[in-house]
């Protein structure tokens, strides 16, 4: 039963990711005084891509074709680690937050290799930029997550979320720092404005898109879907760690239903916040990203320090 729910939850994760992307796009369109496409548009786009024959260069190695599957699988596996509507699932118990970061790094490693594989200038440029940014983003992310895990004394996300719920609504100074740190990292890692622009056509400014410029058809669909999944993963992580209330602690239908409602509402709100931020800011100059991520790291560090100084003594 537990395993069934775990599998269903992961399936829900994968199925809902395009909807979140659609909702985010809808919010952005409305904020820009535009008519918005249907919420289902990302699904249609994915379907359309699967109908198209992928074009693969003669120069491509096996790496190029394997990467979309690797990236998608790794991201789905990362999704099994994060509690979406219920805590205490067996999948969450078997892997912790460090494994999740590892899955992301694994996917990124292959994506960067695939960017280099074809030998085009843009792919290499994208891979180089992605690696630069991730080398700064990963420590900042771990620092923010460690603040949480130290509070809960576990790196297991399920356990940590349960701990936060059990403690009740307490204002933790460490979380005040860790939340913005994780938000900043999430924006950088999911390639959103002001770090990267997922909607651009300008090859020279791209980061994530430059790496996947050569992909088409179902390969592109898998990579796009994985990016949507990653966006949702970060959303769920932020929503459920810092605002875990509503998540199902038992596996009754009622609790699970409330859990689903709660996470949908939280993600919808988070997407609105992100859409507003993306509307307010222009993309920053590439060399500003290091300052931005250093700031995220600093916030994470402050979170950790305030935990040690103010909270750990209790």
């Amino acid at each position, binding site marked *: 039963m537990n395993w069934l729910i775990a599998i269903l939850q992961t399936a829900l994760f994968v199925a809902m990711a395009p909807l979140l992307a659609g909702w985010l796009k809808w919010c952005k369109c409305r*904020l820009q*005084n*535009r008519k918005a496409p249907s919420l289902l548009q990302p699904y249609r786009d994915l379907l359309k891509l699967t109908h198209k024959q992928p074009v693969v260069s003669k120069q491509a190695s096996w790496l190029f074709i394997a990467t979309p599957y690797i990236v998608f699988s790794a991201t789905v596996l990362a999704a099994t680690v994060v509690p979406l509507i219920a805590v205490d699932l067996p999948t969450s118990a078997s892997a912790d937050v460090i494994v999740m970061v590892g899955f992301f790094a694994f996917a990124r490693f292959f994506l960067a290799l695939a960017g280099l594989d074809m030998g085009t200038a843009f792919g290499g440029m994208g891979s180089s930029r992605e690696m630069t940014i991730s080398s700064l983003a990963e420590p900042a992310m771990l620092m923010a997550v460690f603040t949480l895990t130290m509070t809960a004394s576990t790196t297991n996300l399920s356990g940590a979320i349960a701990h936060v719920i059990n403690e009740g609504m307490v204002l933790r100074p460490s979380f005040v720092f860790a939340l913005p740190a994780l938000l900043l990292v999430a924006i950088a890692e999911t390639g959103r404005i*002001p770090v990267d622009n997922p*909607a651009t056509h300008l090859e020279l400014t791209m980061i994530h898109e430059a790496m996947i410029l050569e992909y088409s058809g179902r390969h592109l669909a898998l990579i796009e879907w994985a990016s949507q999944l990653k966006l949702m993963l970060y959303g769920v992580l932020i929503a459920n760690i810092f605002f875990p209330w509503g998540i199902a602690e038992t596996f009754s239908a009622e609790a699970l239903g409330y859990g689903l409602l709660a996470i949908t509402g939280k993600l919808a709100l988070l997407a609105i916040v992100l859409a507003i931020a993306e509307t307010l800011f222009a993309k920053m*100059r*590439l*060399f500003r990203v290091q300052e931005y991520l250093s700031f995220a790291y600093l916030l994470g560090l402050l979170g950790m320090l305030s935990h040690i100084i103010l909270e750990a003594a209790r």
Partner: protein
Amino acid sequence: MSSSNWATDFLNQLNNAEFFIVPTLMNRHLTTAGQSDEDIKNNNAVLWNIESKHWQQFSQYAIEQNLRWVAGWAEHAETLFIVNACFEREGTYLLLRTHVNNESPELPSQATVYPAANRSERHTQDMFGINFIGHPDNRRWTQHKAWAVGSYPLRKDFPVQGEPQAVTPPDMDYPFVKAYGAGVYEIPVGPVHAGIIEPGHFRFQAVGELILNLEERLGYTHKGIEKIAEDRTPESLARLAGRVSGDTTVGHCWAACMAMEQAADIQIPPRASLIRGILAERERIANHLGDMGGICNDVAFVFAQMQFTRLRELCLRTNATVFGHRLLMDRIVPGGVISDLSAASCALITQEISQLRNELSEIMPAVDLNSSLEDRIYTAGYLLPEIAAAFGTLGYVGRASGQNFDVRRDSPYSPYDQVVFKVAVENQGDIASRFWVRYKEILSSLKLIEQFIAQLVIAQPADGEILTEWQPPKAGSEGLGIVEGWRGEIVTHIRFDTDNKIARFYPRDPSTLNWPALEKLVLNNIVPDFPVCNKSLNGSYSGNDL
């Protein structure tokens, strides 16, 4: 602007140096060419014929006199080539001309003195086979591989349909400038880009993200406009001119019609010139709005882009209602215009102007106060005023780098000779400056349209003439149309053949002089800032390639 002082002094100086120039007045402002003081004042364009051996030497004297290099082109006559170069100072244009014989045509290069002449001479070299001696960079330019080496399309014996091969070979083996060293890498960009834009190739040499060198390779939209213009009727040429660069259809069409009207010595009705002014200013406003949005889009500030795009669209819709064409194509014809403005249309335009002002006064503070946008466009893409001057940079690009020149003010043509307006000039030279110069130009264009409409409504009777009957000009008569298009000064030269047919059409789009500035202004910027630098200049590929 009392003009001819420097020209007279310069002429004396050159004739003392044994140039033996006899000046001829160009019939620029539609008064019959004569030698009275009034004519000299009005006709601020002179034609000087010199010997070909003095060609390069002249440019040395010219640069000492602070003459700006404007345009260069050649013509093929039966047994010789006529080579022209146009210069300008203080609003007075000087058309320099020489003759080169048919056998082994060669001419000392002016590009040694004027960097602005560089690509133009290469174009002439590719098109006519005239060898420019001492040219600093005599690689092929317009000639890709579409026609064979040693055949010259603009010579009269070259067929109009060309000598096409079954498959046009790609533009291989162009000798780009190379950079060597550890960590230096090359980024080839284009000619096909991911967005819906024109084709052009950019070759970067970069260290990390820092741009060491940029080289442009244009010519992918070469349409043979100069060749297919030959033997056209004036009406058909005006239509062709309107397609030199789609976004400058009014500007090019006006310049071509002005040149033809000079050649035919006909004067257009005042009402027609007022309507031409309104068309040109509306084109300027629409394109500037689009560009300002484009600059915002290239730094992912999509909100502002959407607003500017919306305003541009409103402007285009009014164009469709009032003039019958969104982009105002083919509204200008030889002898006048074809769409008149009713009182109702004038009212609609006036109302739109105040609406646009209101909207801009809401959007611009939001744009101005956005520090993330500011961070991207201030100091980026800096064009040194000295470099802008050396390349003869025009329009908003030149004016953002201290080049205080505007044909409408400095060499005014009807209807601009009857109005007063301010030309926005800045010295800041960065992307932000080019952005704000555009905004200020929109504001002054709005004022200009209001003045034109006031004149239309008050001074002119509603049923005034808008078209003068066409008079076929004599064979060999020529005209030089110079107008301020939205990108800057457009210079068009037209010579007539017998039977009302065109012998030569050369339109010089401002992009021809602005493109080289891009190679300079991106230096020391980082690769991901190139798109916004490029957008802030926004050269026309089509207008450059012809």
